Every structure is written in structure tokens, then in C-alpha cells.
């Protein structure tokens, strides 16, 4: 029995609940336990937050368009850099990947739904609650947090009324992430179709299994760190106060013990999406599947033992500097394995260049660039020069925007026809791609030069010699921001019917050879795989 027939006769037997369609009316979205509904909620919420965080970035780039103070006061500027980061990390990128996991993981492993559907609903709504608390700080006496997204004491303790709200927001977002991660890990470990062994799982599922583990391990650490901020501020403790025997540097250690794996939380599922899309459009199996799995696991392991490379200038013993420098350099090895595997997958492939593939190729090139600047900064003595400069801003934006964000866009283009049953407009999709790719480089590449020349980050005004590159960077930023409205248009248009072209079940040529989701009808029915599929497509040898 193939997966498709298993799907078509799923109404005939089984528990009553399986044959239900969605609830009527808007309440459907509040009480839903369906992984597809919740996936949609996550994705739309993340898209909204992408534009909220993006607006903040536009304010930052507008202020930096020219030297001198133009539009906002410095306090508000600093709030913008802080909130832009928090909104993008916790409101946009992470939820978007959880949304993809919700939609795709059960369909990719042949499961009827997520393992813990009620908790799935709670994860999403706690995310909304957390972001509400965070957003509320913008309207408070003393303004939103302005000490940087890392919330370093003692600076962050000078925040006004916003401080406890920001801290509790982190707690809620943490609980939401942990619940989401537990759900995904339990789904992957417990809900796979009988013939789907771990080493047959699609790479996207593998990367999320490992990401889920990272999240469960690190979110409590962040929660602990901000709890100590709270007690230092309101309950007279001395964790980060040297006069009482504490140490502000301790906060940095704890924060980056969370923060470094956190950046892999945002990049590992990105790798997963790339490993899913590239083989389909290269019409070849993924090259080096098992080495991809081991490389992902190796990156996750290394991410726990390199955190203090964010703190080279804080005053560590020389042995610490050396250890963290060498350990950090090691990450280049498994990451290199991945980049070479993607390249080898494309090698001599019968490639076509639809929008998802274009974004994926740009990702491989531009992420590698961000990786190389990372390698530059891992060299401790060199980092003394780059630290807290625009060079680091350029570095991590290269790993986040043309990497994580690009692959989220690619995932949207790749799976939207499956989700909606409609084809997106390929011409506008490619226009979106070219505008984004060109402008993202105009936006971030000059920031390398600014940083090397000594321009510090998180500063609303700058010396006159930085003017030219800042203006170019801002122009790139405005084009990039405006281009994303095309994506919004495409999402709305595709949901409403797209090109009107009838999409097939496999959507992309021979996609059914690459993943179970393409064996299902387009659009996907509300419930899928009520009985597990017996035939598993395997994308690798």
C-alpha cells in the first residue's frame, strides 16, 4: 500500500476525531491542535514580526544615512538596535523555523500530527504572549531596553519600567521554545512511520532533531541568567556586582553559553532546508547524507564549548583566549563538509533555477562569506580589532539574512504550492530574489569596510570619514526592505489563487522521489497519514 492510497481511504476507519475538518469561524485558530494550522499561525506570526523588526532596521539605517543626528534621539536609537535583534531572533527567525517544523516534520516522517498537539497550541500562544510583553516595553516610561539584545549588566539594570517586562518576556519566550522543541523531538523520535529509520530521515528532520536538543538545553540557561538580573535589580542579590563578591563577566559567560548554541538554533534548520531544496532542483540525491548528519551533530556539540569567543576583549586568562580560539576554528571543519556537500550535490546535476533554487544557491555562496569572516574573528588577537565594530555586524548579518532569512524565503516558495495548492508567480518570485540578493550585498558588504576602519556598532552618530559607506549601506537597506513587500504580495497572492495554474501532487519534477510530503495531494488535506505510509522515498544512498 502506498502512502497516497493510505491517505485516500483514511476516513473509512479509525478514531472519530481523525475525520473532523477544521472548526468553523475564527475560533478555529485559537483552539486548534492541528499541526498544519499551528504551522500556519507560526509562519504568519513570524512574517508579521519580520516586518516589525524590519521597520526598526529601517529606522536604524535612516538615522545612519548621514553623520549627525537626524530623526531619533540616541536612547531610542539604542532601543531600536536592541528591539530589532530581539524581535528578529525570538519573534521572526525562530518561530518561522518552528512553523516549518510543525508543517513539514509530521508529513516528512509519515506521522498523523505532532506528538503533543495540545502543548503545540500552547507553545504558539505563549510566543504571542511573550512578544506582547516585549512590545509593550516600547511604550513605557524610560523606553524599551536599550542596552543591546545581550542584556549585559550593569548597563541593562539602568533600564526603566521596561526591565521586568523584558525579563518576563524572555521567560515566556523560553517556555514557548522549550515546549515547541520537546514536541518536535518527541514527534521525531516517536512518530516516524515504521520503515523510516533515523538514517532515512530527510535532512530537515535531522537538523530539527538536533536543534530541538539545543533549544531544550539552552533556553533554561538564558532564563536563569535573566532571573539573576531580576533578583540583582529588585531583590538585593549580588550575582553581577563585584562589591558583593559577584562578577558582571559571569553574566556574559552564562549569556553566551546560551547565545552561541542559539545562533546554531537559527542556522541548523537553515542547513536542513538547503539540503532539502538543492537535490530537487539539481535532480540528484543529496551528496554525503551521513556526513551531513554527523556534521550537524558535530556543529551542535562544538557550539557548547566555544562561547567565550564572544568575549575575547573582556579580560580572560591567556589560556582561555587560546582555548576558545582553537575550539572555534574547529567549527569550520563540519561547516566546510556541508558547503562542499551542497556544491557536490549540484555538480553535474541537471539544474533548473526556480526561485527556491536561486535563493539556495545564493545562500551557499553568501553564507560561506559570513563563515569566512567568522573564521577571521575567531583569531583572538585579530578580534581585538574587530570586536564591537561594524565588522561583526556585517559578519552575523551575512549568516542571518542571506542565510537564515533567504532559506526561509526559499522554503516558502518551495512548499507554498503544496500548502495552498496554488502556484506562486515565478516572475515576481525571481524579481524578489534578484532585488534581495543585490541589495543585501549593498547593505551589508560595506559594513565590513566600516568595521575594519574602526566604526563601532550600536551608535547613532559617527565620524565624517564613515559617511560614504554608511550612505551606500543605507540605500541597500532601503531597497532590501522594500523588496520584501514583494514577498508579502506573493504570499497573499498565492493564498488567493496564485497564477491559477493547477499544481500537481509532486509540484516539482520528480519531487516525490525526495520526500513523503510530495506523495500527498496539493493542497494537503487537513489530516494526513492517519495510517503510516509503508513506502518511504529515500533521497540518498
Amino acid at each position, binding site marked *: 500500500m502506498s502512502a497516497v492510497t493510505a491517505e485516500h481511504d483514511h476516513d473509512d476507519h479509525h478514531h472519530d476525531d481523525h475525520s473532523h475538518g477544521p472548526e468553523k469561524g475564527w475560533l478555529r485558530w485559537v483552539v486548534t491542535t492541528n499541526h498544519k494550522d499551528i504551522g500556519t499561525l507560526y509562519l504568519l506570526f513570524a512574517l508579521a514580526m519580520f516586518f516589525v523588526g524590519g521597520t526598526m532596521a529601517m529606522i536604524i539605517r535612516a538615522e545612519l544615512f548621514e553623520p549627525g543626528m537626524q530623526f531619533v534621539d540616541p536612547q531610542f536609537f539604542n532601543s531600536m538596535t536592541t528591539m530589532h535583534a530581539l524581535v528578529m531572533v525570538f519573534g521572526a527567525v525562530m518561530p518561522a523555523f518552528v512553523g516549518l517544523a510543525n508543517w513539514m516534520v509530521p508529513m516528512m516522517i509519515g506521522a498523523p500530527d505532532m506528538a503533543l498537539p495540545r502543548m503545540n497550541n500552547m507553545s504558539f500562544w505563549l510566543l504571542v504572549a511573550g512578544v506582547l510583553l516585549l512590545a509593550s516595553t516600547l511604550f513605557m516610561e524610560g523606553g524599551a531596553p536599550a542596552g543591546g539584545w545581550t542584556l549585559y549588566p550593569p548597563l541593562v539594570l539602568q533600564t526603566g519600567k521596561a526591565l521586568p517586562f523584558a525579563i518576563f518576556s524572555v521567560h515566556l519566550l523560553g517556555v514557548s521554545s522549550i515546549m515547541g522543541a520537546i514536541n518536535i523531538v518527541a514527534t521525531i523520535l516517536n512518530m516516524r512511520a515504521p520503515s523510516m529509520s533515523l538514517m532515512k530521515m530527510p535532512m530537515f528532520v535531522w537538523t530539527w532533531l538536533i536543534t530541538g536538543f539545543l533549544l531544550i538545553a539552552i533556553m533554561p540557561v538564558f532564563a536563569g541568567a535573566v532571573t539573576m538580573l531580576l533578583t540583582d535589580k529588585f531583590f*538585593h542579590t549580588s550575582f553581577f556586582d563585584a562589591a558583593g563578591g559577584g562578577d558582571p563577566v*559571569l553574566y556574559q559567560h552564562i549569556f553566551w553559553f546560551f547565545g552561541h548554541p542559539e545562533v546554531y538554533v537559527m542556522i541548523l534548520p537553515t542547513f536542513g532546508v538547503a539540503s532539502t531544496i538543492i537535490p530537487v532542483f539539481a535532480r540528484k540525491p543529496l551528496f554525503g547524507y551521513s556526513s551531513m548528519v554527523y556534521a550537524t551533530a558535530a556543529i551542535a556539540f562544538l557550539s557548547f564549548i566555544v562561547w567565550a569567543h564572544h568575549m575575547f576583549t573582556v579580560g580572560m586568562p591567556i589560556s582561555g583566549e587560546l582555548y576558545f580560539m582553537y575550539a572555534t576554528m574547529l567549527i569550520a571543519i563540519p561547516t566546510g563538509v556541508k558547503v562542499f556537500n551542497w556544491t557536490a550535490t549540484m555538480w553535474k546535476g541537471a539544474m533548473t533555477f526556480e526561485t527556491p533554487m536561486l535563493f539556495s544557491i545564493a545562500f551557499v555562496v553568501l553564507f560561506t562569506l559570513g563563515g569566512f569572516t567568522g573564521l577571521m574573528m575567531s583569531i583572538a588577537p585579530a578580534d581585538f580589532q574587530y570586536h564591537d565594530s561594524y565588522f561583526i555586524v556585517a559578519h552575523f548579518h551575512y549568516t542571518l539574512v542571506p542565510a537564515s532569512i533567504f532559506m526561509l524565503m526559499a522554503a516558502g516558495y518551495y512548499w507554498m504550492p503544496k500548502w495552498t495548492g496554488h502556484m506562486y508567480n515565478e516572475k515576481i518570485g525571481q524579481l524578489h530574489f534578484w532585488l534581495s540578493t543585490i541589495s543585501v550585498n549593498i547593505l551589508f558588504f560595506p559594513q565590513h569596510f566600516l568595521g575594519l576602519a574602526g566604526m563601532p556598532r550600536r551608535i547613532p552618530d559617527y565620524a565624517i570619514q564613515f559617511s560614504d559607506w554608511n550612505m551606500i549601506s543605507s540605500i541597500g537597506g532601503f531597497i532590501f526592505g522594500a523588496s520584501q513587500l514583494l514577498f508579502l504580495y506573493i504570499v497573499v497572492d498565492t493564498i488567493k489563487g496564485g497564477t491559477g495554474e493547477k499544481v500537481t501532487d509532486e509540484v516539482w519534477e520528480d519531487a516525490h522521489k525526495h520526500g513523503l510530503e510530495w506523495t500527498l495531494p496539493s493542497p494537503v488535506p487537513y489530516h494526513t497519514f492517519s495510517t503510516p505510509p509503508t513506502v518511504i522515498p529515500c533521497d540518498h544512498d
Partner: protein
Amino acid sequence: MSTNNAYYIPHKATWPVMATAGLLTTLAGFANYLNGSSIGSPLMMLGFAIFIVMVAGWFTLQATESESGMYNHGVGVSYRMGMMWFIFSEVMFFAVFFGTLWYTRNLSVPWLGGEGAKVATKLLWSNYTATWPTNGPGNVGGHFEPMGAFGLPFVNTLLLLSSGVTCTWAHHGLLAKKRDQLIKGLIATVGLGFLFVLCQAFEYHEAYTEMGLTLGSGIYGSTFFMLTGFHGFHVCVGAIILSVVLFRSAKGHFTPENHFAFEAAAWYWHFVDVVWLGLFVFVYLM
């Protein structure tokens, strides 16, 4: 394939939204309270009330569904995995505070005492000698006495360790279909748990009133109360969970094959137990 072989997926859920509303209201209330706003406390209490109703409702629903046989083996495995990973997240949470204790005792306090040729500390606090316990070079919180290991803390160690034994004894009773042993074992476990909390309350009272030891007593007071406080909170939660399991056992719930709630509570209890052993060694003894 028979009906109860299918993985149970609820059609809709209303408790999770209520849980979110409860948590959001509680935390917004708490934040307002910390900012000195008068609506803080009532908001916090309202949120907490919503949360309590939600916990009662959600768990009643789960217990009813479980007893009516709606969960197959697969659902049970998912629940167990959920609980395991939740406990792992709790381990990481406690690891932060144990790590803080380790870092301050072995690194930052010696640095404040001049180790490692830190010029700034020599300039700021030239007379400070690094010792443990300490409230830092600023003598933050004033004079205090550290908490010894062999008073109430040792009694508490014995209490918790025996409660781990009674909990396992109750589990054996459940597996052997000895309902009487299950209930007696659980009563003993819950009793020992609450006794532990009572002893800790006495300990805290003594610390605050007689020893000058408070949350504000520098880094020693901070780590001492943060670690033992969060642990004590977990003991309370664990004892409440076990009380619910006791109540359900008395109502005839659970079979030797199907008793996830008992297992989860027992795992949680043993986890709390192990954390205490860490506390006893690293906070009290060393």
C-alpha cells in the same frame, strides 16, 4: 486496525489558551508590582487564579481521557519523552546556579582577592582577602553567619532520601497490584516532602532572624538562597503533583501497565532528590 490502536489526537483544545492568559496576566502583574504600581498585586492574583483553574481543568481532562483508555502505547511513549526532556531542561536550569556558585568560588572571588594580578581590584579593594563564605569586598548586607551542614540541612537530607525510598516502595505496590502499599507509600512520600519544606522554612527563619543571613548577604547569600529557594519551590511542586497522584490512586486510577502520571511524578521527585544531594555537598558541606 482497531480504534484504540490509533494515536489519539484531540480535535481542539481550550486549556492551553487559558494557560497562556493565566501566565501572561501573572507575569504582567508581577512586573507592575516590581515597578511599584498598585494594580500589580491584584493582576498577579487574578492571573494566578486563572492558572490554578487551568491546571485543575487540564489535568482532570487528561486523567479522564487516560482512564477511559483513549491513549495507546504510542501516546504513552510521547508523554514519557515529554517528561524526560522537561526534566533535562530543569537540569540545565539548576546547572546555571551551580555553575554560578562554582565560578564565583573558584574564579571571581579569588580575583577580587588579588589573584591573577588584577590591577583594578588592587586599586579598588586593596584590603580584601578572598575567603568563602563571603559577602564581597563591600561587605554587602553586613555581618552574617554561614549555614552549617549538620543541623536541619542534614535532617532534610535524610527526609528526602527516605521519601525517595517510600516513593519506589509505592511504585512496587502499584506494579504488584497492592493498592494499599501504593497509597501508604504515597502518603509517606508526600508527608516527608512537606516535612522537608517545613524544616526549610525553619532554616530560612533562623537565617533571617538570628544569623543575619539574607538574600542580600553578598554572593554567599545570593547563591545560597537562589539554589535552596528554587529547589524548595521544586519540592513543593513535586509534593503537590504526588498529592494529586495519591488522590487518583485512592480513586482507583492506574494499572500496572498504565500509570504515566505516577511515573512522571516519581521521576520528577527523584530529580528533585538528586538536586538536593548536589546542594548538600556544594552549598552546605564544601
